[in-house]
């Protein structure tokens, strides 16, 4: 099983902790016992296993600087003596020499579904010539413990997505193919498929069609969001707006908004169509509130909860309800799944907020702060008696690298992250309890497992 880890670096030399992302890949692939092989796909990006301790990382950086200092007369930087040098070629002889001191390869063992790492060991990609967009290739081999049913459900959605994107005009299909192909957790389609197995009219093919349409709808909203947020990257790749301009992004978002609603309508279940249409309206209305709240950034908890209820949780809830409705599940089951989806979606958003403060996420730390995106850890830190005044003062001004870094430090130093983590876990517990009171035809463990996995980035 092969995969690529995409990430963006923000400094000339940077240690990107990939451990949690690799662990996620192992879990997602269902690898029980075996190996993860990693290979840097760049000549100025190394791999290393060591301790994630900030001062030690600074020591490593100093060591590399002493061993191969920048601008020390490298022949590689003498462009007059080289052939076919691109116009934007950087003077980076030092970075290549530093890479020679590291490795381009690494293998981690996997036992009982988890990475075999010592207590202090982390897996790093070492940026030597940043900031850049980077990719590490991954291959997993060994004994996989996934059920055939699980594999086939996921494969059905991927096939359906590929089929839909194959028939669309290239100017819209090509950017969407890149976005969909870059990965994503596919939580919403999984919720559709699982809940579509509950009622008496379970039909995996129709469920996969609905699941793929919901994923396209979600991605259409992301394309417009990225333009609004001025995001340059998503899932490690340039956003549609950044790569092809806002005009194309608006057109691609509109096309897949329309196509997804058509595919949903053509499934021919009025309840499903209405549930998803209501959710989409809630997403759009909350996006307006979200942007409006940036005037009083970072806002307060009540406003935050109201916005993410519409912006994130509504589509999770509609995914759960629509799958159940498609399968002909009883109304009390549909309602319970809707409540489950709201709680899960809310917890998922909280977990997603916390990723902004994790150096191992693959995203630059503090990106949400820089873009003034709504964030519960930031709200809690701003309310904190000790760090709050400084957080609020920094957020009130211009946010350069230094200010963003300082805010991230203050949030991490405050009790905000454990508080959000606890709250998200409480919501997952409550979501799972919603499943207790109804008959789910044996699917409760799968739904509970999916709920836990949605927030396991913060465990």
């Amino acid at each position, binding site marked *: 099983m092969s995969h690529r880890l995409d990430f963006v670096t923000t400094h000339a030399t940077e240690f990107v902790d990939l451990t949690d992302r690799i662990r996620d890949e192992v879990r997602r692939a269902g690898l029980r016992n075996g190996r993860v092989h990693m290979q840097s796909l760049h000549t100025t990006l190394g791999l290393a296993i060591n301790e994630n301790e900030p001062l030690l990382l600074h020591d490593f950086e100093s060591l590399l600087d002493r061993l191969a200092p920048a601008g020390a007369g490298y022949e590689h930087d003498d462009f007059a003596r080289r052939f076919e040098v691109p116009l934007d070629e950087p003077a980076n002889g030092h970075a290549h020499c530093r890479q020679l001191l590291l490795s381009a390869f690494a293998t981690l063992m996997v036992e009982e579904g988890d990475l075999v790492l010592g207590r202090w060991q982390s897996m790093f990609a070492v940026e030597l010539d940043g900031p850049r967009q980077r990719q590490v290739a991954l291959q997993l081999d060994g004994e996989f413990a996934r059920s055939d049913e699980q594999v086939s459900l996921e494969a059905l959605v991927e096939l359906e997505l590929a089929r839909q994107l194959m028939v*669309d*005009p290239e*100017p*819209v299909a090509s950017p969407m193919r890149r976005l969909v192909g870059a990965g994503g957790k596919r939580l919403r389609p999984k919720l559709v498929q699982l809940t579509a197995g509950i009622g008496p009219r379970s039909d995996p093919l129709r469920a996969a069609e609905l699941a793929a349409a919901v994923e396209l709808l979600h991605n259409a909203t992301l394309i*417009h969001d990225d*333009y*609004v947020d*001025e995001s340059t990257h998503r899932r490690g790749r340039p956003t549609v707006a950044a790569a092809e*301009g*806002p*005009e*194309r*992004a*608006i*057109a*691609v978002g*509109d*096309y897949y*908004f*329309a*196509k997804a*609603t*058509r595919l949903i*309508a*053509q499934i*021919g279940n*009025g309840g499903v*169509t*209405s549930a*998803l*249409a*209501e959710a*989409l*309206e809630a*997403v*759009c*209305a909350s*996006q*307006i509130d979200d*942007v409006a709240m940036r005037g009083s950034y970072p806002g307060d908890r009540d406003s935050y909860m109201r916005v993410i209820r519409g912006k994130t949780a509504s589509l999770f809830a509609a995914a759960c309800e629509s799958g159940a409705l498609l399968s002909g599940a009883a109304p009390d089951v549909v309602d319970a799944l809707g409540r489950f989806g709201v709680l899960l979606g809310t917890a998922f958003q909280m977990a997603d907020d916390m990723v902004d403060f994790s150096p191992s996420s693959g995203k630059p730390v503090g990106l949400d702060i820089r873009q003034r995106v709504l964030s519960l850890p930031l709200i809690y830190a701003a309310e904190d008696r000790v760090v709050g005044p400084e957080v609020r003062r920094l957020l009130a001004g211009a946010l350069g690298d230094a200010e963003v870094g300082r805010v991230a430090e203050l949030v991490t130093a405050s009790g905000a992250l454990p508080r959000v983590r606890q709250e998200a876990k409480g919501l997952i517990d409550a979501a799972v309890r919603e499943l207790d009171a109804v008959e789910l035809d044996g699917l409760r463990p799968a739904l509970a497992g999916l709920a836990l996995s949605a927030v396991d980035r913060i465990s």
Partner: protein
Amino acid sequence: MSVQLLDRELDRLEGLWSDGLSETYGSYLDAVGHFDPEMQPKLALAAALIEAGVRLQGLGGRAAPPTTLLIGDLCLARGSRLLADNAPLAVQVAFARAIETASSAAAAGQPAPALRQLLRQSLGATR
């Protein structure tokens, strides 16, 4: 159109009504005469919201600023929800196809089709 319906369906979009949406709505009324009387204002409003939404977004022209885009998105979503709740399947599908046509033309840099004409035809779709 009843005041209650307007109040509900123009939530957050009130300013658009006096800013041309009422005229756009009026231009669709003669295309919905074959529906139940109760449905007619809802379907005309759905069509008007979709036309206004696409215009606000700047589809096929210069991209709207982010906040205007979001208002356009809400117009499209609300129009789509009105259709989901009130229109026959054939009309829902025809509306979606009209937006697909307009947006794929915009993405390809081709001249925009006459959206109002497409939407009016969509209101007459029977299959």
